[in-house]
């Protein structure tokens, strides 16, 4: 065993011990405050919904209409990320008194099949983060985000396709991916099929069952947003189309917001080795390396679902998100001590700009003369 290898292993052991210690400390802290937090969020979300939908319903002019959109958006935003995403990670599973916030009971107010999400997002993306052909979120849909992946002519259009088509409906897209429909599309339409992409499998589940779940998860949102509330408005003498338009705007903006939050915190980061799971310490390092945070206040962090603390979220995905800002200080301290880079963009804007640049770069075929070095391998090594 050469010295560098021994040093590496020592680092892994050290990192594992330190991050596990942080995790245990925060697990021990879980208690009534977390229950109160998630219940409080639900209450706020409900109030925002009441105000927002009420305004959309009766608004006679653009100002009240815009306020209606804003409040409904707040409701949809809280429900989809700070509540929904975190609850589906099982962050509140250990509290018996709130079964409605247990990951297997929870129903998302989003067009996403929960089991499909848990299997793809929790079980694949969070385990094999940024691993080539193993992380389905690394290049979902038709996206190409690294040199390793074969280029085809469709990638030339990825920037406009994603900015104008995919992002306003990103959750619908994730749903299709989680249930395995995106890989079918690529298999049929890409010259090299799914090479470079990570398919999602559902053993023991038939195609018909998946299609049914897909339909059910979408139609509940469609029914509520685009049928129930517009018809209620119509039945009480208000405008069907105005409510419909308001809800469409909310859906679109909410999806866009989510896209820009999550895409800009992973996809700019390097590919990771696939065998990292063999050592917990190595795995922690790949999680550290495959994510990048961006700065924001604690209040704004709630609206980003605390995904601006992507590093902490990936290190400890089932610790309730309200602890991430505190955990971040401890993680930074560990990184500093070991000389590990702790990546953080100064603002959301910087994160988005970096992301756009990368998306643009990989929409073109690799240059023939360039030494296309795979970006694999942790940067710290």
């Amino acid at each position: 065993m050469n010295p560098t290898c021994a040093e590496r292993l020592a680092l892994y052991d050290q990192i594992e011990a330190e991050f596990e210690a942080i995790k245990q400390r925060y697990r021990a802290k879980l208690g009534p405050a977390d229950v109160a937090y998630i219940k409080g969020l639900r209450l706020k979300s409900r109030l925002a919904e009441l105000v927002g939908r009420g305004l959309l319903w009766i608004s006679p002019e653009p100002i009240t209409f815009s306020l209606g959109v804003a409040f409904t958006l707040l409701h949809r935003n809280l429900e989809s990320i700070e509540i929904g995403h975190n609850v589906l990670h099982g962050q509140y599973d250990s509290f018996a008194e709130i079964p409605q916030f247990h990951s297997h009971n929870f129903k998302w107010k989003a067009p996403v099949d929960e089991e499909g999400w848990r299997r793809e997002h929790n079980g694949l993306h969070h385990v094999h983060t940024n691993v080539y052909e193993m992380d389905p979120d690394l290049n979902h849909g038709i996206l190409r985000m690294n040199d390793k992946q074969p280029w085809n002519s469709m990638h030339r259009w990825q920037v406009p396709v994603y900015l104008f088509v995919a992002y306003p409906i990103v959750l619908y897209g994730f749903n299709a991916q989680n249930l395995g429909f995106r890989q079918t599309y690529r298999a049929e339409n890409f010259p090299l099929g799914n090479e470079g992409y990570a398919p999602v499998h559902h053993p023991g589940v038939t195609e018909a069952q998946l299609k049914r779940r897909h339909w059910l998860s979408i139609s509940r949102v469609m029914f509520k947003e685009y049928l129930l509330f517009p018809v209620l408005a119509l039945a009480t003498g208000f405008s069907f189309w105005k409510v419909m338009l308001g809800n469409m705007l909310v859906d679109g903006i909410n999806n866009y917001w989510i896209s820009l939050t999550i895409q800009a915190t992973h996809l700019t980061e390097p590919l990771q080795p696939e065998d990292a799971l063999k050592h917990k310490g190595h795995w922690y390092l790949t999680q550290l390396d495959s994510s990048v945070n961006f700065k924001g206040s604690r209040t704004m962090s709630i609206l980003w679902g605390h995904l601006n603390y992507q590093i902490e979220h990936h290190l400890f995905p089932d610790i309730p998100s309200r602890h991430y800002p505190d955990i971040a200080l401890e993680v930074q301290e560990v990184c500093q001590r070991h000389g590990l880079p702790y990546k953080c963009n100064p603002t959301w804007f910087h994160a988005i700009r970096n992301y756009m640049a990368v998306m643009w770069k990989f929409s073109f075929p690799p240059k023939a003369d360039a030494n296309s070095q795979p970006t694999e391998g942790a940067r710290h090594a």
Partner: protein
Amino acid sequence: MLDRALARVNGWALDTVQPQWVDYVVSNTMTDFNRWFNGFLWTYELKALVEQVIDEAPGVKTFVLRPNQHWRGFQPGQHVEVFLPIGEETVRRYYSLSALPKGRFSITVKQTEHGQASRWMHQALRVGMNLRIGHPQGHFCHQGQAKVLFLCAGSGITPCHSMVSALLTQPESERPDIQVMAQFRQASEVIFWETLQQWAQDGVKVTTALSGLTAEQVCLPDLAPRLDAAQLQKHCPDLLDRDIYLCGPTGFMAQMIEHLRGLNVDLGRVHTERFVVAEPPASSDAVFETAGAEVFFQHLNTRITLTQEDQGKTLLQLGLDHGVLLESGCCQGMCGTCKLTVHEGQVSGNLLGKAVYLCTAYPASRNLVLDA
């Protein structure tokens, strides 16, 4: 008043709409208000509505129950745990299930002198009330043998009743050769009297034994005095050809086993049922023997029985090895994908409150119920 109306609406909804659709609507509209207003449907728990109370015999009542959308059916012969809200505490009891049409089932309860639960059920449990129940359990089910004898006493007749009723719905050519011997103390205590008559008409050989009778007092050919080896042989000459399903009070079962042993019956063909009482938790320092232990994945309605080979495996590995379609991720306790909740029983290893990380936890009790 409101309760009655709600019970009626709930019953109607469950009768008209498929359970999966009820579940789809209910789970997607699970607000605090709905849970408070109509806790029978808007709940994460399996509950049953009392639809009818029937007097079977003095001190014996049958309760017809309508489970909510979380019910996934049962095998005739299985039993169910019922949670009774008696005063401040919740008392748990097990009862055999009898299938009824349209998704209902019934439990038959005999009032015992000091039985807190049976007394409460006889006096306080009324039509329109909701009870929390468990998922059906037990292996006391007909296993396809061609010749069977159901040997039961007292309220032990209920699982047999359930199995025989189910078997009688099969066409005569496919039905096994069924014989029933049921013992009661006296004629007035016979449970399912009319059903027993009906079975006799349907071609089942039914013998009703009354332990209070002497051999001289017996006046009908299908009536017997207290069952013993001689009576068993007299009423069931082909005893050795039959698989025997035995259920009743502990004393009765012990006696019957002795008699059957005396008659050279292969005890491997005697299937018994005891209503299980919650066992004490396994001590943590002893090595837990997995062979024979059961794990029930309630959310998937899948039960697995562990073998010697499962010794030392994690709960996740056990599940996957037995073909359970569990969600899983890193297998190291970091991503939390495999987490489930311990509903009953004990586990060791990675546990947070009642949330258990299957990939890094192990079974630690004979009976373990995990739920989503």
